[in-house]
């Protein structure tokens, strides 16, 4: 039991850490594509780790399925949004310097 709790804490903390790093990336990276890279890759991993950490504490299995589904949807949505933003970004500015677009 202790081991499971330790593992969960580790998963949740590392998930939060990934979010932190991803946010740092959005703030610090110079151009839109690399910001999207930070947003989509790191946050999806962070969310996955958090979901994984929360799963053992779930009492009803439909809730667990919903949480996994949310994670998958978030992955799909962020991949799609990132793709579209970069596409629009390219259309506007071949040089890609400046603000982040709406996603």
């Amino acid at each position, binding site marked *: 039991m202790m081991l499971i709790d330790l593992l969960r804490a580790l998963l949740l903390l590392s998930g939060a850490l990934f979010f932190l790093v991803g946010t740092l990336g959005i703030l610090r990276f110079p151009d839109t594509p690399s910001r999207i890279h930070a947003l989509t890759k790191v946050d999806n991993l962070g969310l996955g780790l958090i979901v994984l950490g929360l799963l053992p504490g779930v009492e009803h299995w439909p809730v667990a399925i919903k949480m996994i589904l949310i994670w998958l*949807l978030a992955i*799909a949505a962020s991949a*799609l949004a990132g*793709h*579209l933003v970069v*596409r*629009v970004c390219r259309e*506007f*500015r071949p040089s890609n310097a*400046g*603000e982040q*677009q*709406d996603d």
Partner: protein
Amino acid sequence: MIDLLLALTLPLVALGVLLARELFRAVVMFIAFGLLMALVWVRLQAPDLALAEAAIGAGLTGVLLLDALGHLRQPHPPGQPLRSLLPLLTILALVLAGALGLVLLGALLEPLQPSVNLPAEVALHIEASGVAHPVTAVLLAFRAWDTLLEVAVILVAVVVGLALRFSHDDAAAESRVSSPLLQGMLSWLLPLMLLVALYLLWIGSYRSGGAFQAAAVMAAMLVLLRLSGQQLPGQNHPLLLRAGLVGGLGTFLLLGSVQLLQGGAFLAWPEQLAGAFILLVETALTFSLALLLYALFEASPAPARKGHPPRTGDQPS
């Protein structure tokens, strides 16, 4: 801890919206504000409001604002008559905001006098309403008048929006985002969104959910379809569109009048069929509100997407 963080962040983000130097930044801050607000509603144990705030306050309003922003970026004829009025408008806005703030402060300082314990009253009469979820019972049984008038207000807003839109002839500007990935994902996402909308509608009778939330999801579907360049079925049938727009209110009025025929009160549901009537009204409202919310989006002229650098529209704060 979380509450403290939220309480501190919310005013900061609100300030960010007001003081943002660019309109785009302000809009993004506003969306963030809506999402934070939804979190606050969750913390206040009002999941219904949280759903509505996230879907309508942050999502749909955000889309509308971004859309309006795209329109603002279109080249305007020189000479803006509003410029000279700006100081006056600023003072007016400040006075209004100040007055509203004072009223709110007064309301906060007023000692609470619970003359009627509303949650207890609702719990007492919920059997008679025909649904099991107190929020739905309030919205569609106890205070159905409010909901009816709300829908009417939205309908009027959309009618005005559409009337203004038809005076623009340049609405045919391209506003498409085309991408094979988007098309592929849409065929996955849209059925899922429809499922979520119907789920929200259905669980409204016993849990958080209902017509407004379901309608927001459906409106999002329509916006997504529109932005991806799909032809909406029935897009070119004004009659069909109008029927859809007024259908919810019409059903509401029609079913609400049923008891009138038997000498009852307006908007009083028949005792045995209350649940079924509410579900019918909610279903009609969902589809109608989805069209209404979408029409608000559609009513704005198409944004300029081609050839305009997206960093203009600086606004003095």
